[in-house]
């Protein structure tokens, strides 16, 4: 890969911070090809640490709860949730938007940063791509669970029906099917393509026959030849190019679910950029929430250096500011439009019965992230973890505010009603977290969680620089 001249990889000197206080190291000193191979590839090949087992157990329990919730849902119908008329969309849609948002960091890191030659993606792109896949899986389940008749979900797909009936293409929900479907497909391919050389490394290091066979099967006969690398890199770049617009389009399309509707609080042109920023915001927050503990448990500090965390925090701060601006503009436009419905919506959002949720959102998403201005906080993994948790919760609350407080009081006052979630709503939310975490734990256990080949590139870069 091409490398810009002013590569910061060369810094050996011990205070590895820039004059502004940014950590500059992408790789701890003393890393060789073999240490990299060993650190990463040995994780799937050896026994899982106790902390993994415990974490997996908890996640699996949540997943089982999810199963119970879904089973009962399919048996009885969506009436077990708190949804009603007028609030016909409840937690399922909130969760959907939230998970899709979380799914954004992966592709953003992998594709956009790759195209922009940002080297601080190397140690985290695999994680975040996996996270993307799992988050999209959780997100994709939600609309299905949300349906009144989930057994006919496939009517949203344009399949050749003998009756000649097609989906109704003017509906944003159909666009969602395409947007999320495409996103999932591209993300999966991109993730797998990046994995192939690493799977070959694991295959080569495997000591048991079955491990060799399984990893060998998925390594697709990778032999590390120059022509393999040449084709791999071309395909990887092409996919990155394909994935880049998707980062912007997926959440724009999801935001159309709202902005195409005429509901006050939904019908707004600011939604696409504001949703995309929010998505990246929550995606990075979730990445930090995953990366920080994993880095600690598997002692990967020398590979996932402070610089990664710092940069991620910076991105969160930037996107967080965009989101805050979105909140402000929404309120301003409600007033400036002079529209009675918009104005009432804004007043209701802030001072109505769900006002406390709105102010919690402001606290979580606008106020707390301001801590990230401080380099000390950004370098403190515990503090960073907590801020990221706030942002994740805040982004979920944001979707709650958008979906529920807009619906509960729209045009016709006689129909206004409150929404209150039932235990099944909460079980679905936390159950989906269980699904996500279970998949994430399995990923950590079974697949090289950091790109071995790209980390080796970092070593190579450094060696090259040293020789110079």
């Amino acid at each position, binding site marked *: 890969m091409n490398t810009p001249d002013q590569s910061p990889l060369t810094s050996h000197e011990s205070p590895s911070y820039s004059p502004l206080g940014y950590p500059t190291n992408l790789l701890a000193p003393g890393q060789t090809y073999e240490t990299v191979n060993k650190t990463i590839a040995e994780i799937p090949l050896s026994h899982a640490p106790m902390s993994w087992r415990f974490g997996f157990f908890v996640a699996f329990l949540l997943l089982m709860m999810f199963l119970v919730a879904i089973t009962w849902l399919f048996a009885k*119908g969506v009436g077990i949730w708190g949804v009603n*008329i007028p609030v016909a969309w409840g937690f399922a849609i909130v969760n959907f938007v939230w998970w899709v948002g979380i799914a954004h960091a992966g592709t953003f890191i992998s594709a956009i940063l790759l195209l922009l030659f940002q080297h601080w993606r190397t140690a985290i792109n695999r994680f975040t791509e996996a996270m993307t896949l799992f988050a999209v899986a959780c997100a994709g389940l939600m609309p299905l669970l949300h*349906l009144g008749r989930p057994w006919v979900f496939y009517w949203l797909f344009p399949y050749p029906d003998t009756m000649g009936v097609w989906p*109704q293409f003017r*509906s944003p929900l159909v666009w969602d099917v395409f947007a999320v479907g495409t996103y999932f497909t591209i993300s999966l391919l991109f993730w797998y393509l990046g994995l192939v050389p690493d799977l070959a490394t694991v295959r080569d290091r495997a000591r048991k026959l079955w491990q060799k066979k399984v990893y060998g099967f998925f390594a697709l006969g990778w032999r590390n030849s120059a022509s393999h690398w040449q084709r791999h890199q071309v395909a990887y770049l092409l996919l990155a190019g394909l994935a880049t617009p998707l980062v912007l389009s997926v959440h724009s399309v999801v935001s159309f679910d709202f902005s195409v509707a005429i509901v006050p609080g939904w019908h707004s042109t600011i939604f696409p950029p504001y949703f995309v920023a929010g998505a990246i915001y929550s995606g990075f927050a979730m990445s930090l929430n995953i990366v920080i503990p994993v880095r600690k448990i598997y002692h990967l500090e020398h590979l996932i250096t402070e610089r990664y965390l710092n940069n991620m925090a910076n991105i969160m701060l930037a996107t967080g500011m965009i989101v805050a601006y979105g909140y402000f503009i929404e309120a301003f436009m409600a007033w400036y439009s002079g529209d009675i419905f918009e104005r009432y919506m804004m007043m209701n959002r802030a001072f109505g019965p769900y006002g406390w949720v709105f102010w919690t959102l402001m606290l979580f998403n606008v106020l707390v992230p301001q801590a990230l201005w401080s380099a000390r906080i950004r370098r403190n993994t515990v503090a960073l973890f907590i801020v990221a948790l706030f942002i994740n919760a805040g982004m979920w609350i944001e979707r709650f505010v958008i979906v529920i407080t807009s619906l509960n009081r729209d045009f*016709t*006052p*006689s*129909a206004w009603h409150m929404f209150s979630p039932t235990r099944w709503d909460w079980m679905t939310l936390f159950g989906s977290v269980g699904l996500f975490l279970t998949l994430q734990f399995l990923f950590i256990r079974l697949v090289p969680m950091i790109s071995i080949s790209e980390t080796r590139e970092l070593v190579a870069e450094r060696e090259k620089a040293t020789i110079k």
Partner: protein
Amino acid sequence: MKPEKQIPITDHRSPITRANSSDEFAPGASEWPAGLSRREFLRLSGATLALAGLGACTKQPLEKIVPYVEQPEVVIPGKPLRFATATQFNGFGQGLLVTGYEGRPTKIEGNPTHPASLGATSVWAQADILDLYDPDRAQTVTTGGGIKTLDDFWNALNLALESVKSAAGATLRILTEAISSPTLLAQLADVMQKFPAARWCIWDPLNRDNLNANEGLCDFSKAKVVVALDSDFLYTHPYALRYARDFSNARRTIDAGGARMNRFYAAEPTPTITGSNADHRVAVSAQDILSLTQIIASNLGIGTRPTGEVDNKDWVEAVVRDLNANRGAGVIIAGETQPPEVHALVSQINMKLGNNGVTISPVPPLALPANRIGFRKLVDEMRGGTVELLIVLGGNPRYDAPADFDFAAASEKVKLRVHHSVYFNETSRHSHWHIPALHFLESWSDTRAFDGSVSIVQPLIEPMYAGTSAHEILEALTGQSPRTSYEIVHTRWQTENPVPDFEAKWRRALSDGIVRELAAPSFPNHGESPALAASVSPPAEVQRTEVRRSRLELLFRPDVSVRDGRYANNGWLQELPRQFSKLVWDNAALISPQLAKREELENGAIVDLTFRDRTIQAPVWIQPGQAENSVTMPLGYGREVAGRVGRNVGFNAYALRTADAFWSGDGLTIRKNGARHSFVSTQQHHDVHGPRGILHDGTFEEFVSNPHFAQEKENHPSIGETLYNPKEYPYKGYKWGMVVDLNVCIGCHACTIACQAENNIPVVGKQQVAVHREMHWIRVDTYYSGAADDPEFTHQPVPCMHCENAPCELVCPVGATVHDDEGLNLQVYNRCVGTRYCSNNCPYKVRRFNFLEYNNGLSPTEKLVKNPDVTVRSRGVMEKCTYCIQRINAARINAELEKRTIGDGDIVPACAQVCPVEAIVFGNMNDTRSRVAQLKRSPLNYWMLGELNTRPRTSYFAKLRNRNAALVRSD
């Protein structure tokens, strides 16, 4: 398969074999062959039959079908038939037309030729059909909890009658509800004749005894000024449907051609449908109505001395001035809840103003058999132990008798108690025998309307359970050989009308639903006039003391849904939002906002109500428009022995009701006890929240000076302002539309329940309504404006708007909601996957979703009430008003068969059909002469939320109020 091989007749030269062998159309083949003997003919036919049998060798489904042994006349499977019959309301008849499919009644409508209906029905008549199929109805004769046959009962009754006979019936008492059936009354007269010492009694907890001889028949169509004093003549009055029609016609400014509108004043202690339609309404405590009436009377020059002061001087002055200015064109009417003094005064006022004979005519008196006693006397006799056989025909006195009568203890002294009723209720449980009564759709009878017109009640279905009718029981008392209700009713009429063409006239009466050419059965031994009714006692002297004002007043009112409790087990009525509070599945002690503030009460707070030394606990509901110190207790709840639907719903207000405070009484104390009750209300916001374009209203003067005042408040994008081709959908054929006239809509909710009956809308229960999942396709919103203690009310029925630019259609991902070429917004249940996006995007929120399977667990009888022309929706699909598309299609089929277009009035949606005031008009907007097209051209016509450019097909008429300039508030 060659027939020659199988049939041993090939050698014969029969036409068949020849045709098979050579020429199919051989010359002369069609001629009957000469020489074909009888024997050969039979063999041939036998072969034909055998072949036909072979050809029909497909496997038939294993299903037993029972064909009609005799094809009934006029029954075509799948085609509904309509029969005229009548129901009873408060003892008075209301003409009905009942629709039935293959002998299964499914829908009740009003009979257009009946004067008390004119085609409309009340919510109760609509809901009667559900009672018919209620699985909780009494199904067998029971005694002491054991099941018996009807014959067992007849034997027991005859045995009891043996001892009764010896004393000329001195120990026999018969207790009935308010009845007006000529045949039943004549039978009763016979019983009284046979047992001269026997007595009978009428007990109706909602009786009209206060009116006595002062009952008048009002003609609101001629009244320019109407004054209602605690009268709910638009809703609970036995003639309410007719009154509402006449009243609304006098308000219909546009139709009248030239501006004309009546002016309506109301004074009442608690908001009623009637009062909510007043141009000037004052909230006055029930006991102040007398003073108010006296002041009006004395101002009109009637020599009365007002016994009290009232605060509403301006209102009284305005009333007096308007009444004086419209002599002979006014109506002043007081409710049955007011004491006889008020009615006497009201009569005098009407006479003084020359209204009698013009707007008010006497009600034809109802003759009642002799030997009638008051209810108090009956209970005293029972307590005294002189009653040995008590036959209770209908009603539920054990539950609804005045609390101070202690009916329960008194009835324990009666040796043999027989109760005859449709439901097994509190009284049945404490009777020795309970005999299931037949529903009026199962048995023959007759009834008499408020105005004296008589209808024959004819059944539409065979009795479903082992019951009998009151006619048969009375017949058994007179000791005649048992006859069916039909024979009893028919014979009575025939005997009364010995005319040669009786049968033809009888049939005409049946088909018309009203008897015009025959005289009703009569009897010689009349008792006193209804004036003696005095069911309870002469009303206690009204105690008026100076301290009274500081004391609270308690009002007992029939519930707007379950009335006196008889409809407690009716799910449709329990789930019908009460007109103002929109509460469902509950009653509440209604209190004024001022009282709530004073006592620090909020909705749902449970209070101890102490009245006449009795205390009950009841949750309160704050009702704007309630008189400050009046607490309203809706009767009919807290039933202990009802079906599964009605048991233990709400609290029993009868527990506080005494004879001296029958409708109201002062001296109530109210104490907060800290507990709370969770109410469920379908409308929680009664404020329109600014100029949202939902309601437009104005004054009559405003309208006269600027007829377009309402439309000028509108802000529509013009039809051309679109990126699309505005002429893309021209709607060349039919173009369906609807107008809802808010100006005449009284807010009775009949449309809601008619729609429920027509469109198979399920009852979802209190828990589901609590999470806002009620399924009504047309709801009635009530908005308050003005001060909370003196608000004005506006009712707005909201069905689907069938928008031309429907927001719901755009967002459905599977195209389950689409537009047709006649402008209907269709919902395709089969295609719906249940994303509920359409409901979110509907600004009117008229869509309803099957969150759960609401049609599960229906008993076989409950399934019978479903309209076969309408899909029963399953879980997970959206539904909404279809403009009764099944009726549109029925009319289309008829029109196509007759090779014509659908005419105006051929299609009447259920909501429009039931509407007593004809506020809902449906039709083809492309037909410029149709009523709907004419109405749409009116300057009052406006679109709800028209600003959103949805271009709704349902539009509204702005509400007008005919203000008296002298009373217009400075604000």
